[in-house]
């Protein structure tokens, strides 16, 4: 059974479309990395899973249940580290964990939870005095209470230093080993690459890639990154390039065109650009990294595609 299933989900806020016709399935037991730049619609998608917002259209299932009709039952089996939350300033760290334990009717020692997320010794302090990273750890601790079947972590590494981010990944791995499904969003590939079985890349509310990490590596492995210097290139000029066989993605910042493609396609790419009237000044190729692929999927042409500012939506 799928832990998460989205079928043609669209969410509009007024005339801004945050998520469009999103189809996504995350099988049980998988560690799934939900990638995309800020504003791509990741948090909106997560908010739909948690019934914080309701989809404009489409079907959603979480753990085989409708998150709207069975909202409490879904959250009973789900641990959530939400985005854009804040803690109760006047309650201590331990009281937060105790509240989660009481809410989930779990039977765990609050201090063990605090210890696990690296807050041992801070449990008696008011959470209002916590740093961003500590608040993030506290919310993770609340999410872990009750051994949930599904963990939804929205940008869990934000506010954490590199060591903290690593501890976070260790916990994700432990939870996955226990058998939990982990749905993990980030705008940084490096955060998910090390722990995820598979990733989906969201851009402007649409899923532009869905693959296992190995699958992505294969794509990258045979490919090259082609960097072409050419003044005044617009995104429209790239249409022909994207249509070529062997080209995965193409983007431009106006002065440089970056293309992810098979090595054999290089000549065709240059040709297509020149046919489009672009004066190619110089070009270079190098072997692609996963990061290049991610950037190619998520950067570049967005402003041209969405002049109404739809890319800024992050509700």
């Amino acid at each position, binding site marked *: 059974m799928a832990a998460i299933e989205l079928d043609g989900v669209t969410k509009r806020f007024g005339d801004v479309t945050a998520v469009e016709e999103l189809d996504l399935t995350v099988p049980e037991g998988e560690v799934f990395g939900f990638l995309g730049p800020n504003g791509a619609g990741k948090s909106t998608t997560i908010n739909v899973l948690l019934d914080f917002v309701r989809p404009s259209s489409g079907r959603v299932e979480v753990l085989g249940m409708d998150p709207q009709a069975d909202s*409490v039952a879904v959250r009973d089996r789900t641990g959530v580290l*939400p985005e854009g*939350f*804040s803690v*109760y300033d*006047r309650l201590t760290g331990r009281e937060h964990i105790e509240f989660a334990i009481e*809410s989930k009717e779990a039977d765990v020692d609050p201090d063990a939870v605090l210890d696990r997320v690296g807050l041992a010794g801070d449990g008696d302090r008011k959470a209002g005095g916590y740093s961003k990273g500590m608040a993030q750890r506290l919310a993770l601790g609340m999410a872990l209470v009750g051994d949930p079947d599904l963990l939804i972590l929205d940008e869990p590494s934000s506010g954490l230093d590199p060591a903290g981010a690593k501890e976070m990944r260790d916990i994700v791995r432990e939870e996955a080993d226990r058998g939990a499904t982990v749905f993990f969003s980030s705008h940084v590939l490096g955060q998910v690459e090390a722990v995820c079985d598979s990733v989906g890349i969201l851009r402007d509310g649409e899923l532009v890639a869905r693959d296992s990490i190995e699958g992505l590596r294969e794509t990258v492995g045979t490919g090259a990154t082609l960097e072409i210097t050419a003044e005044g290139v617009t995104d429209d000029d790239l249409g022909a390039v994207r249509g070529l066989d062997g080209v995965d993605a193409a983007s431009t910042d106006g002065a440089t065109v970056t293309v992810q493609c098979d090595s054999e396609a290089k000549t065709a790419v240059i040709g297509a650009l020149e046919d489009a009237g672009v004066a190619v000044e110089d070009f270079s190729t190098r072997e692609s990294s996963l990061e290049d692929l991610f950037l190619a999927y998520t950067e570049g042409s967005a402003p041209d595609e969405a002049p109404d500012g739809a890319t800024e939506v992050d509700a």
Partner: protein
Amino acid sequence: MSWEAVARKDFRDAVRSRWLWVLSVLSVLVFAGAAVGRLYVGGGNQQEAAAILRGFLFYLKQGTAIIIPLTALVVTYASITRERESGTIKLLLSLPHSRDDVVLGKFLGRSAVVTLPVLIGFVVALLALLPAASGLDIFVYVQFALLTALLGVVFVGIGVGVSAAVSTNQRALVGAGGLFAVFWFLWNFFVTGVNRAATDLFGLSTPDQFRLRLALKILNPIQAYKTLVDSLFMSDLEGRIRMFSMLFGMIPNQQAAQALGPELSPAFGDAVVLAAMLLWLVLPLTVGIVWFREAEL
């Protein structure tokens, strides 16, 4: 139960705000003041002492009728909107609580915050009062404290209902402040206006006009509270007639006495007035719960 967890959490949180302590001190002063007045000013004469207590409570009611609703609204108007604005609501609703339970839990938690100081103040006063009090005084005192606590709970319901129904602190402030203004300043204009229109339309007799005005006045939870307190010292009928008097009840309205007496219709009895207060408890909470179900966070 889920709302219990929310209520406990909310109470623990709210208890640490200085509001609870300001309220407690205030209400101890107010209630104990009544007791001290009863003990020391009243002296040894039982009847004289009872009269002083009644006089004291009678004027005290004017104070509680404004302080209790105001503090209840201040303590509650942002109870849910502040969580929405700060983002703590996401932490709260990430846990398995239904939205209905969030509203009910808030209502219960904040009810405790508002009624606890009233009851503490009352108990302190009772201890001071006990040595010299007659049974009747204590009974009246208990009822007065319970009515005052109920007034607090009603306005907690109104404040939490408003907070659940709207999306920002600012709107909640406007909503709660607006309702307070309606109950305190505008209600009698509304009563007069409706009465005039109805009289023009249907040619109501004078007693009918008074009955209509009384029915409308009872629908105001603050006026309902005041007349219920009055009923502790006098008959239902006298209590209702007081609602038409001038200058805090010092000048009785003879016309009202003639129109409503000599037997008060059971439709205006204390039970009905109490029901009107409870209506104001249920209605705003229900509206808040239904609107909050639809809200996007």
